[in-house]
């Protein structure tokens, strides 16, 4: 039992973070916003970083890593508001595909994959995808509040439970990353912006708003890691843990977003500060891959419905008799 990341995991996270900080700042978001949202150069960079091969087996040219590593990367993608179809293609699809040629094409960055599922009224980035798993999309574009999302209407979709859990987990991870970024943006703004002869961050009301976000985030993270580990190891309770992670991450993100805009004041209500990109992404991911009510119902069935043993000895699988 060890809840600390390994040195390799930390290096992976730090490497991806440094890469995205260097190549995918807010100015990139503004450019993409003006130009239509996607840029082959960004995709190439992600491929060169090795991210497309992250969880593809080594035999197909990937790194063969697990879902904890994938979720660590998804947090960073959320923090940087990356909009290329890297999560669907590289962090979810490889677990849904058996075809070795397709896996190799994903690892090499040549194949982009889109995901269809009846919980979503859209398929993201269907136009660029060489493969749509779980259904098909039309050419009809659906406009999102998030200017960097490219959504297409669903033509048909079958419910794939494995896809749903993987995608909900990765949405939770991106929400955690986006929340961390919103907290950082609001904190930096509060240090700089002066009113009444003080940085507004000196006022207790602002401090306490931001501290509450920090609390929500701190306690969403370990829920995410348990879910990633459990799903990776095929635990029976993994779907419940994933729903818990999506719920905790959604609640933290909605709090982070409303707090961050409040701290930014009227500036937060403009397109001129960077905040809005992450806020809109948070709204989108909150509803994607099962909304709050969907995941809450899964927890409710488990906890109140009694489908799962609960109590202090049930934090992890113990191998002991329930009772």
């Amino acid at each position: 039992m060890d809840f600390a990341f390994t040195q390799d995991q930390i290096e992976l996270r730090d490497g991806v973070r440094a890469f995205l900080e260097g190549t995918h700042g807010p100015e990139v978001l503004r450019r993409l916003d003006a130009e239509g949202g996607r840029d082959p150069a960004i995709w190439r960079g992600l491929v060169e970083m090795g991210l497309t091969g992250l969880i593809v087996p080594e035999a197909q040219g990937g790194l063969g890593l697990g879902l904890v590593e994938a979720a660590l990367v998804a947090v960073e993608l959320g923090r940087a508001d990356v909009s290329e179809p890297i999560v669907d293609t590289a962090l979810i699809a490889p677990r849904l595909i058996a075809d070795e040629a397709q896996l190799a094409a994903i690892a090499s960055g040549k194949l982009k994959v889109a995901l269809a599922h009846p919980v979503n009224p859209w398929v993201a980035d269907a136009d660029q995808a060489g493969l749509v798993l779980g259904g098909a999309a039309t050419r009809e574009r659906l406009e999102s509040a998030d200017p960097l999302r490219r959504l297409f209407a669903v033509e048909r979709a079958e419910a794939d439970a494995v896809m749903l859990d993987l995608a909900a987990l990765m949405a939770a991870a991106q929400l955690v990353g986006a929340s961390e970024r919103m907290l950082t943006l609001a904190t930096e703004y509060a240090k700089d912006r002066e009113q009444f002869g003080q940085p507004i961050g000196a006022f207790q009301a602002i401090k306490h708003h931001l501290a509450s976000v920090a609390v929500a985030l701190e306690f969403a993270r370990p829920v995410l890691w348990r879910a990633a580990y459990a799903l990776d190891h095929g635990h029976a309770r993994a779907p419940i843990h994933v729903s818990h992670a999506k719920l905790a991450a959604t609640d933290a993100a909605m709090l982070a977003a409303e707090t961050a805009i409040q701290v930014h004041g009227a500036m937060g209500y403009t397109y001129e500060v960077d905040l809005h990109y992450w806020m809109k992404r948070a709204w989108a991911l909150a509803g994607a891959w099962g909304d709050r009510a969907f995941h809450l119902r899964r927890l409710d069935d488990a906890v109140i419905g009694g489908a799962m043993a609960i109590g202090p000895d049930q934090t992890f699988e113990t191998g002991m008799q329930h009772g």
Partner: protein
Amino acid sequence: MELAYTPEQQAFRAEVRAWMEAHVPKEPLPTLEGRTGFDAHVAWERTLASGNWGMVTWPEAYGGRGLDLIRWLIFEEEYYRAGAPLRANQNGIFLLGPTIMEFGTDQQKARFLTPMAKGEVMWAQAWSEPNAGSDMAAIRSRAVRDGDDYVISGQKTWSSRAAFADWGFGLFRTDAESKRHKGLSFILVPLDAPGVTIRPIRQLHGETGFAEIFFDEVRVPAANRIAGEGEGWNVAMATAGFERGLMLRSPARFQAAAKRLVELYRERQADASPAAREAVVKAWAEAEAYALNTYKVASTVMAGGRIGAEASLNKIFWSELDRALHRTAMSLMGAAAELKAVGGRVNQWLEGYIFSLSGPIYAGSNEIQRNIIAERLLGLPRMGAG
């Protein structure tokens, strides 16, 4: 306390209802925050004025009907019951109008109020500056007296509707040596005057309802000043009181939104969370509470009372109820919440949620309002005063 309408009040309600049913556009107008929508809303203002409904509480001499606040509430209830559009000239009619009524000269009243009630001149606020948002006393834009004129230079920002409006009103520093609340004057400026530059600011939703206004030696007559030179802060505080107080956020608006939320819940309840159900009932209950409180305040004002720091209670309540109501709607929309259009129709819940996020910020942030409540209503000490 007599919580029943008189027959005359009932007849008035019937009159408003009949007019609204005949005139309110059948389809929602495009958003007020963009050019097309703004123009459509101005056209609606003129339709309203054609029925003499522009500002029912104002004296007939200024284009009103001279009605009391209870009838105003009845008017508003029927207005929102009919699904009538937002008021394009809300900065004028709800903020500047009452300010001129209280502080203006007869000449100013005649000159400015009637065109407002008639929907002929649209107004923008010009309060905030880049470094004077919540801290309005930090204003730096200056108006230098030159004969019968002021020459105005400086910059205002986050000016609602300034991209489309005809005139602006705001505070300017008329005493260059002054600091903070002193030496400010309340001045009206035509936005097509030489030296005025408007730079639209794109808002959260992508539209440009906000703008920056740059003043480069803009010359306006001193007759455009409301109240005395250097008395601007008191005038502005009164305006801010109107903003937080009775009229700007008519309760009927939230009651109408709560009714739509109930309908949304009924459509989507199979997929809703348990707490969403309670949140829907609570949104309705709070909209009712806000309406009841407005009747209470209206009755108090009609009996000669004034609204003081209680306006801050009001502003917190409506802005937080509006945000919670729309947050609940977003949660009921689920995966469709992010879409700008659903089934070929504009996603008004998304628009409404975005708009509701501005509520706790503008007209004095809710943090400032809580300070006001604590210090002025509860009598708690200022920091450092102990």
